[in-house]
């Protein structure tokens, strides 16, 4: 029985448990036994009693199975192969697995491996059979236990509600596990990278060329991992993006919040939201195919030498992408400024724009700054636009007409395609990922803190 089939059987068992439990409780109630809860709660309780042991065993078995299979297969191999180093042993095991599943193997005629593959197949079959039997038995036992529990002394609803509560708490902890998962996965690989490449070289080196060769004696065999040009490129493109996004976004927000009639607002806001909802890959396509050639042609016509993957094109389009982000965040903040402050200023004879500039904006400033910081973190982490429209070569320059590369571009190029997982080249991507995560995390924490402080001020 394969896993999905087993799943189905257990699900049916759970459904049966619910029906049986409920009808049992209903009969008891009809016979005027005083029951604590409604019949369906007894049904739920029986179902939970069935599901818990069955799924617990299923999960534990599925996790333990590969390890047990591996050790059993290894012990069936002759000692000559058993004493191979870790990596080669893994290759042999993979080969055996391929043989067992009927896939293509390089050593189909090797009798030892054939024997091992048969052994592997048999053990796996046995394990699957045992798993199915035990899981179903556990489910049945749970059902029986639950059924026995249906009497007037059981507070079924309390038990069910406790179970639901635990499930709710478990779900809310997933956010923490996600963060933890991110930190651990990025951190471990980065530490392995910094074992091979010193941190000082990574953080202060001025030369980035991650191409390492396969043979040690090849020319340029040692890649160099100085990340400064990448950080500079990221900052350059983000700066261009913010130069576009902040004035346009902020002015749009001010206009929408202070001047626009309600009809204009009702139309313009959803349209801006569309701009925010366009996938970044579309912006990337637009940048690479429309904006970059346009900038190059304009540059050529006035005698400037523009790279075809200029930082300017990527930055401009990224800025357009971030406009709605800045505008909706600032819009929220501006509308939260109390009307009394505006009225006071207008009553003293200030014009509307003076009120906005001298009263509303200073009052909203912390919130606006928070929003802009969030936008910066967004620009730094933006991937598709730069992958499609920015360059690959790590130039250390502040000229927006040249091609630069960014952290995200490097992560994508280093990790797409097949690579040995422990080469410094792949690990470098995780080190860059760590930098990206830490930078955006700091920006986000500061920004969210400022915005929250600001909200509290006027609530």
């Amino acid at each position: 029985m394969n896993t999905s089939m087993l799943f189905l059987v257990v699900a049916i068992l759970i459904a049966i448990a619910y029906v049986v439990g409920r009808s049992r409780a209903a009969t008891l109630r009809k016979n005027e036994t005083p029951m604590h809860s409604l019949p369906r709660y007894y049904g739920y309780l029986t179902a939970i009693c069935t599901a818990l042991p069955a799924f617990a065993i299923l999960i534990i078995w599925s996790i333990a199975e590969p390890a047990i299979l591996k050790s059993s297969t290894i012990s069936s191999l002759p000692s000559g192969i058993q004493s191979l180093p870790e990596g080669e042993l893994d290759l042999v095991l993979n080969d055996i697995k391929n043989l067992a599943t009927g896939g293509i193997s390089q050593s189909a005629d090797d009798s030892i491996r054939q024997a091992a593959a048969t052994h592997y197949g048999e053990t796996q079959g046995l394990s699957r059979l045992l798993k199915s039997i035990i899981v179903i038995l556990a489910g049945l036992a749970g059902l029986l236990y639950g059924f026995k529990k249906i009497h007037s002394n059981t507070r079924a609803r309390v038990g069910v509600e406790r179970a639901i509560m635990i499930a709710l708490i478990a779900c809310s902890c997933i956010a923490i596990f996600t963060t933890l998962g991110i930190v651990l996965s990025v951190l471990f690989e980065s530490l392995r990278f910094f074992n091979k490449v010193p941190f000082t070289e990574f953080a202060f080196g001025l030369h980035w060329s991650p191409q390492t060769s396969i043979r040690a004696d090849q020319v340029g065999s040692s890649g160099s991992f100085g990340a400064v040009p990448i950080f500079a490129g990221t900052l350059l493109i983000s700066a261009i993006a913010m130069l576009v996004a902040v004035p346009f976004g902020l002015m749009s927000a001010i206009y929408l919040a202070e001047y626009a009639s309600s009809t204009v607002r009702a139309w313009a806001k959803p349209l801006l939201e569309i701009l925010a909802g366009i996938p970044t890959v579309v912006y990337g396509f637009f940048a690479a195919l429309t904006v970059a050639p346009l900038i190059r042609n304009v540059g050529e016509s006035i005698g400037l030498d523009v790279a075809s993957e200029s930082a300017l094109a990527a930055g401009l389009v990224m800025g357009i992408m971030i406009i709605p982000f800045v505008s909706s965040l600032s819009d929220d903040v501006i509308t939260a400024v109390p009307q009394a402050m505006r009225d006071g200023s207008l009553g003293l004879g200030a014009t509307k724009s003076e009120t906005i500039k001298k009263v509303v904006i200073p009052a909203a400033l912390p919130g606006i700054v928070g929003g802009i910081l969030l936008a910066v973190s967004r620009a730094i982490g933006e991937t598709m636009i730069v992958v499609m429209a920015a360059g690959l070569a790590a130039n250390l320059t502040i000229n927006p007409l040249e091609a630069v590369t960014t952290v995200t571009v490097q992560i994508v190029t280093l990790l797409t395609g097949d690579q040995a997982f422990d080469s410094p080249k792949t690990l470098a991507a995780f080190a860059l990922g760590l930098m990206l995560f830490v930078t955006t995390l700091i920006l986000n924490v500061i920004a969210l803190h400022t915005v929250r402080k600001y909200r509290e001020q006027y609530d």
Partner: protein
Amino acid sequence: MNNDSLESTSEAIPPETTMVSDTTEKVRKSLGRRYAREKRFKLFGVIAITASLSFLAVLIISITIRGLPAFKQTFLNLDVTLDADTLDLGENPDQDALRKANYNGAIKNSLLELFPDVKKRKEKKALYKFVSNGGQYDLQAKVMADPTLIGQTINVWLPVGDDASGYLRGHIDTSVPEKKRRFKNNQITWIEELRADNKVQTKFNRTFFSRGDSREPEMAGIKGSLFGSILTLMVTLVLSFPIAVATAIYLEEFAPKNRWTDIIEVNINNLAAVPSIVFGLLGLAIFINFFNLPRSAPIVGGLVLSLMTLPTIIISARAALKSVPPSIRDAALGLGASNLQVVFHHVLPLAMPGILTGTIIGMAQALGETAPLLMIGMVAFIVDVPNALTDPATVLPVQIFQWADLPEKGFVEKTSAAIMVLLGVLIAMNAIAVLLRRKFERKW
């Protein structure tokens, strides 16, 4: 008397004005400047908003212009003689032999029949390019469905090759010297002849919606990536919706105010702002390298995307739960409902429209996401339409990314057309969310 008083008042004005004038005069003088500044400021606002919206317009219009031709496909009418010799078929061929038969040869022969003058090798080669490589698969499908066609001459419409269809659509500039052109002069004469014979026709491009990826632009379709997207989104929805709602309920209705819940809250807000590519790194390191899940599979994509959309849905679900007034809770509690019954029987149904709106927006975000999926290997060239959660698959945005890199003119069209499909779906999803919000929004 009357005149007198008038005179006296008019005489009285000058000293008064001189008295206030110091400030008033200053104010009056500066008024012009201040009003001009006011106008200018307002104008900046108008400019900002129109500029932002015109960016949107330019983007959509430029993509539509590029993409529209891809919904049309050019076909060439041919009389193909399917005799067994050309097809390399023996007596009584089985299905396998029919699949492997040389349909290309039959197509080439029928092209040569149309132009008997073409003799040179090079010219023949140029002529063969008129029919797309995919044409043979159309013939193959026809013959395999009805093997009695062998030996007959059938009249079929076959898709035109990339260069020829480019010419027919006017993408090829004939003023460029022949040597620099992909479509040569003799090819132009031939295709014009065919056009004059009414043998060339443009129809709705069904290939685009019914095939997977291909190396030939005229045979490439989005069906594979569309199905990949659907499978991935299904996983995302199934995982993220219940978990997000449960989290929101716990945090909003039950969580005590302590350090632990504070940590959870800060975490959720931060995750909402973590760059999506970092989630891809997480997926690569944990799901693929640690749990050994298959690369390029919708299940891994769905897992990564659900972690990514969780914060979005949680935040909107919490807002929806918060907007349900406490009186509802008090009333239910007063009637003897337990805390959980209050939430699940009363608060949650009332908050559902808001939660669904947030979910749709989260799903739309997941549908448009590309970067994390690149990390978990969904960039492979995959022709087949995925059927299961562990099949190798790609998704629509990644398909767009892949096509965008290809130099053929046909792929630029395909990319734009795929973008139009993606944007269409996204706008529809957002419109549903907005309608849902309008319809069920309640002011308490």
